[in-house]
């Protein structure tokens, strides 16, 4: 028999769930699905923050990352930057409070968006090891370095400060932040991949890395200047949603709907504002604070109906095709062919975005050779059966997981790569010795989840990515067809060179002459014939020739 519960009894059990508690139970939503990924998350969040901070402060980043294996599956991650530092008062909340940040409420391209990242690592660390997050921060104007140890109070979603003091410890360049977190994890090469890719998309950053086994790696910068800082953008009417509009209406200092629209939105002039009012039948002089639900809905609908100029595009910070190419050449110095392109910006739902593509073809990367498999010279122009490496970036941040769920991947698969001389089975990733870089930058990248690993498949994004891939594909294709011709000649030379030793040896035995000299003469012939482009033309079968003399000679 079921025990009856009264509504009052229920009420006793119902209570507020803090955001922190929610994420404590749903760690995977933040990207902490498994130990390998968790360790990567710690590195990634700290590095992304450092890069954002340096960039905003106009400092060329110099970041060092160290991972120490404390015991078994416990690791300490230390990330230090030469950024501007963080003022004392802000540190506890930045590192110890979820959803606290400077980037959420503005429309400006940055790596972080929601203000979850680093504090979620604090949460994860304390959940798995109980260790607090340690932060050292030195601001240029202060003499001392501020040191703090903190936890995140999951009930209140507030920082718990365990220890804080000013210490005499200088930072690199006299300013910067060093953060140290101890957490449960597993170390894999993906950390290195992430840093390498970060170095590709941030050519101006210098990153050094010390792996748990003591191996040191350096990812030098290939550019000495920071990119032009992206501008903050006002929302564009096409991308606005009910909640956002409602909040904007409450906060605005504009007195009328008309001036609200021209002041608070980008690309909206009085002409378009008037038209929106006209279509929505909401009076132009309505006070923003007095707008009700129905009116807001009407306005939103009208906004989509009116033709409004696209948003300004100077809010995007791209890597730049030249810079990306240079950066890729630095990372893959032995690659046969490197190219990069970028498209003009486009807009999805009122958010400007831009796609950049980089291609590295015929790379040789000792570490990435599988099982020391020897690459044969013969295979030069044969296409490898392995799928290409797809490297995805969103606002310069490498996307390390959920490749197949990502809209960028969808776009890559949607391109007919056979037209660009690559093998491709059905609508899979093409195959070949190639790394394909796809970078989307936007003031607001639509991610599939909080862990920011896959870009949502907005049709505008897919379409624009495909166009960009096709641009890059054409460049690749013209290289490959040229290579094919050159490869053909090379292949022929290789054939003759390969056979010349045996021929020389045999002729040497038959004539009792020096095999070495004969071989040298044949090799000279090969090179001189290559230069005169003689005899390499084709492989016609041995042709029959009437040769009566021979027959006659035989008879004698």
């Amino acid at each position, binding site marked *: 028999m079921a025990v009856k519960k009264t509504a009052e009894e229920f009420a006793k059990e119902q209570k507020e769930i803090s955001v922190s508690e929610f994420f404590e139970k749903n760690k995977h939503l933040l990207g902490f699905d498994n130990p390998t990924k968790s360790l990567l998350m710690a590195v990634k969040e700290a590095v992304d923050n450092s890069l954002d901070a340096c960039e905003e402060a106009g400092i060329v980043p110099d970041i060092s990352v160290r991972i120490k294996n404390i015991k078994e599956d416990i690791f300490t991650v230390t990330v230090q930057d030469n950024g501007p530092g963080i003022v004392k008062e802000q540190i506890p909340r930045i590192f110890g409070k979820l959803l606290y940040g400077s980037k959420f409420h503005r429309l400006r391209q940055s790596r972080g968006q929601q203000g979850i990242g680093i504090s979620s690592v604090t949460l994860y660390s304390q959940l798995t090891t109980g260790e607090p997050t340690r932060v050292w921060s030195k601001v240029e104007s202060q003499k001392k370095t501020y040191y703090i140890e903190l936890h995140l109070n999951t009930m209140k979603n507030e920082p718990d400060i365990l220890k804080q003091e000013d210490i005499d410890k200088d930072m690199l360049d006299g300013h910067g932040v060093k953060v140290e977190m101890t957490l449960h994890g597993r170390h894999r090469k993906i950390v290195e991949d992430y840093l390498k890719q970060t170095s590709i998309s941030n050519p101006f950053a210098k990153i050094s890395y010390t792996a748990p086994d003591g191996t040191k790696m350096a990812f030098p910068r290939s550019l000495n200047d920071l990119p032009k800082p992206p501008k903050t953008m006002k929302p564009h009417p096409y991308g606005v949603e009910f909640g956002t509009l409602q909040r904007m209406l409450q906060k605005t200092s504009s007195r009328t709907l008309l001036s609200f629209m021209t002041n608070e939105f980008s690309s909206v002039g009085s002409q378009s504002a008037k038209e929106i009012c006209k279509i929505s039948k909401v009076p132009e002089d309505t006070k923003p604070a007095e707008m009700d639900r129905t009116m807001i809905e009407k306005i939103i609908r009208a906004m989509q109906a009116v033709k409004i100029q696209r948003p300004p595009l100077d809010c995007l910070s791209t890597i730049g095709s030249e810079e990306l190419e240079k950066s890729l050449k630095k990372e893959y110095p032995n690659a046969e062919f490197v190219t990069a392109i970028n498209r003009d910006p486009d807009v999805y739902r009122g958010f400007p975005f831009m796609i950049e593509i980089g291609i590295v073809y015929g790379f040789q990367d000792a570490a990435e050779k599988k099982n020391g498999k020897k690459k044969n010279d013969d295979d030069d122009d044969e296409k490898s059966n392995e799928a290409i490496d797809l490297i995805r970036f969103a606002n310069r941040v490498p996307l390390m997981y959920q490749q197949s769920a990502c809209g960028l991947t969808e776009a890559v698969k949607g391109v007919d790569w056979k037209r660009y001389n690559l093998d491709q089975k059905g609508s899979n990733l093409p195959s070949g010795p190639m790394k394909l870089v796809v970078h989307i930058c936007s003031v607001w990248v639509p991610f599939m989840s909080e862990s920011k690993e896959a870009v949502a498949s907005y049709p505008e994004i897919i379409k624009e990515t495909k166009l960009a891939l096709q641009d890059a594909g054409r460049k690749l294709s013209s290289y490959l067809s040229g290579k094919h011709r050159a490869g053909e000649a090379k292949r022929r030379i290789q054939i003759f060179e*390969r*056979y010349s030793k045996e*021929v020389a040896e045999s002729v040497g035995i*038959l004539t009792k002459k020096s095999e070495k000299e004969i071989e040298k003469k044949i090799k000279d012939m090969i090179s001189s014939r290559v230069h005169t482009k003689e005899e390499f033309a084709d492989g016609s079968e*041995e*042709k029959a*020739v009437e040769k009566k003399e*021979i027959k006659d000679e035989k008879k004698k």
Partner: protein
Amino acid sequence: MTAKVKSELEKLGQKVLNDIEKKENPNIDIPIRALSNVVFDKKSGQLTLGNKTAKRYFFNVAHAKKFMQTMMVASFCKSLLDENIHASIRDMYYNLKRTLADSNENTFDEQSESDPIIVDLEVAIDVLREQLHLTTDRKGIVAGNVTIEDRGDRIDWSKLGSGGWSIPSTVDEVDFKKVDADFVLVVEKNAGFERLHEDKFWQKRKCILVGTGGQPSRGTRLLIQRLNDEYKLPVYVFTDSDSYGFYIYSVIKSGSISLAHVSDRIATPEAKFIGLTVSDIFDYDLKKATIKAKDVDIKRAKELLEYDWFKKPKWQKEINLLIEKGIKAEIEALSHRGLKFMSETYLPEKLKKGDFLD
């Protein structure tokens, strides 16, 4: 002989070396071995190669490997001759098979790749494979009142019990010491050879009995040719009564299409066909022992009709009869008339009557 073969090999090497010295594309002339370049010489009654040759170049992607292989085989044979040793064509394949430097390509992948190169070399420098000291498996057996010397050993073909002497590929190096026979009887099938050997046919009829075991090997053909040429012994060929049997006869007599270049050295134009003819089937009442000819048999028979060397009235009649009746018979069919019918009745009668096809 060896000296001449050696000098031919050296000449080939020198030719290629000269090309290299003159900075010309090194090449070898190789007569073409295909039906299109095979001619039936009515005068000699042999198949010979026509005068079409092909050049094999080193600097030609399609030729380069074969060029290399030809030179390798030539130098291998030169070494055999220098050291006076023999090697089987399989030995040679294994000896020359290796992986080329900086690649995963082999000089030869299969013996089927090196075998034709040997023939190329034979035609290119006009010598025999046997003279290059290359041997093949023994195939074919012989019995009779003959004594030979082979690599220093004396062998009496009449004293080999139930077997016979296995014919090696290097018959040209065999010395005949005593030959006491009136003719040579070549039997296509080992079973036929066994029958006649057990019946002491060679003793009774004073002949040399050769069993080819199907298509005769080059050694067997050379042996037949030497017995015919050196001892003026008539040669009679005894095969099944079908297209394949007839062709075996023609190979012994006129040479084969694939080895047309050696016909003059291993064919026996004087060889005659003793049986089994299609007419014999009717003359000796063997109809109940016949086999229905298959489509391929008829097709092959029609091809034979077109060969110049079968364009003789008697042969055309026999082959047409085969096509018309759609039957064929094995030599064992004679056992239908009794196990000793072949040795005691059929062959003696044919020999007595001189009933041969030429």
